[in-house]
């Protein structure tokens, strides 16, 4: 079950670190970084049901271009 309740102890620190990770990167490089991040986190989670829920949640509200 995908946990969408707060689970990160220091949310502002995490958010800052996430934005910092992209510093100095082109859009293309940022996309690559994000992709690597998604893959690393997906493997860490492992549970395909949870991953599927996360993909569906992320896709919500985004209409095909």
């Amino acid at each position, binding site marked *: 079950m995908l946990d969408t309740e707060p689970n990160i102890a220091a949310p502002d620190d995490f958010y800052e670190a996430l934005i910092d990770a992209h510093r100095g990167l082109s859009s293309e490089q940022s*996309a*690559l970084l994000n*992709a*690597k991040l*998604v893959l690393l986190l997906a*493997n860490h989670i492992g549970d395909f049901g949870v991953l599927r829920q996360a993909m569906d949640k992320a896709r919500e509200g985004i209409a095909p271009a």
Partner: protein
Amino acid sequence: MSIDYQKLALDYVRSPDQAAPRPAHHPVVVVGAGPVGLAAAIDFAQQGVRVVLLDEDNTLSTGSRAICFAKRTLEIFDRLGCGERMVQKGVGWNTGKVFFRSELVFSFNLLPEAGHHRPAFINLQQYYVEGFLFGRAQELPSLDIRWKNHSLDIRWKNHVVGVIQGPDGVEVTVETPDGEYRLHCDYLVAADGARSAVRKLLGHESKGQTFRDRFLIADVKMAAEFPAERWFWFDPPFHPGQSVLLHRQPDNVWRIDFQLGWDADPVAERQPERVIPRVRALLGADVPFELEWVSIYTFACLRMERFRDGRVLFAGDAAHGVSPFGARGANGGVQDADNLAWKLRLVLDGSAPDALLDTYAAEREFAADENILNSTRSTDFITPKSEASRTFRDAVLQLAKDCAFARRLVNSGRLSVPSTYADSPLNTADADAFAGPMVPGAPSADAPVRVDGRAGWFLQQVGSDFTLVYFGGGGKMPAEHLQAFCALGEGTIPVRTVIVQPSGTKPGRIGGMRVLEEDGLVTQRFDAQPGTAYLLRPDQHVAARWRRFDPDKVRTALARATCNG
């Protein structure tokens, strides 16, 4: 003297059928003398079914084409009596390496355990495969007595131009250099390739997804020091932005497969002045080579909706098409033939109902879906269709170097493995607990055995007929078991029994049954215990298994496996 299979022209011989006042009748006509049609025809002939094989041409494969033949296909070729010749000539390999840009990101071993007769793959030019199958077909006993009692009759330059199905057979119109003639058969097997004439004549289509990409095959002859491994590059410096595959074939021929992209000009790109610089970029300027064969191809993943239409059975590329990544085309097709031959034989001799042929379609449609799914996924990884897809692909390749999980995601082709027909109606569901992959519907594992004191292989001892594999455990065989084994061998559909015993037990036979001695790998791979019994189909797939042998249960499972239940 060795035969030049690339130049071999087979003689068109006028058949007496061509002068017959009425269409001559044959039980089975196979259309297409490629790997699938030849394998099917040999299987029929070996099983005693008279068969006519028609081919529109009189040569073998032009160019090397399908070069990767999988372990399961080799095991089928072993059963057909020509596996050893293929393996002797072929280049065996188990290892694949994947490079991203100029770095090796990982290597994989497709057969990491010992104790198998055949390697994961051999590479062998398709013209050799066809040539060796043809050679085997010619060896079949009684072939030389034309029209008396020979069983396999191959007719070159016999082009099928008409197919009409009736309630009791199929009428085939065949065009030859001497004009047209007609044949009548109980069943027609269409193994006539991706552009199947039979399929078109019956108004069927093979539908699916066409990929917008072009690839260049350059077979080059050179004395090179690369190992016999499958090397796959994503975005290499010598061919930026695209993929390249390098593979060794016999006779110092190397397959190089360059992705070109959809915009490439298929006519210009096959010219030597375009091809040679691409090869040089890979090999270096100072490596001498000759171009052996060049081809530009595109591909599609597609299949017919049904592999059976009445008395016509479709097999190989006629029935389904896949991308080449994964070597699932010819391998899948040979497995079609393997599935079909025994079923058609039982239906023809009246010991199984026609419904058994529906299971050919169902099992091989399932297998085709598996092959199409795998080859489509490989294609999507190799040729990403969107920016996001390419980004994830590159992310996987970057992570693969030091993250084991990402290596599992790298997809340069999921190489052909046989299907397990887990949901087949021919299976008898397990009533006892078993572990491991030898579930009902699975193809049998191989393992070393000794027969009459001589080293051999398990798979050489089973197949072509139903086989009961009984694990004796070295104990004394109950007399009622032996009587039951004998009775099973004398049924309408005979079941041969082989007894697996631990090494050191007395070799030879027990009550007329063949005994296989082994050191534990058969037992391990079948998760067997003393008293375990497996019923194997003629195509070596598992039909049923039990912890305790009960002849009534074997008979019930046999009936189920032949649609007599």
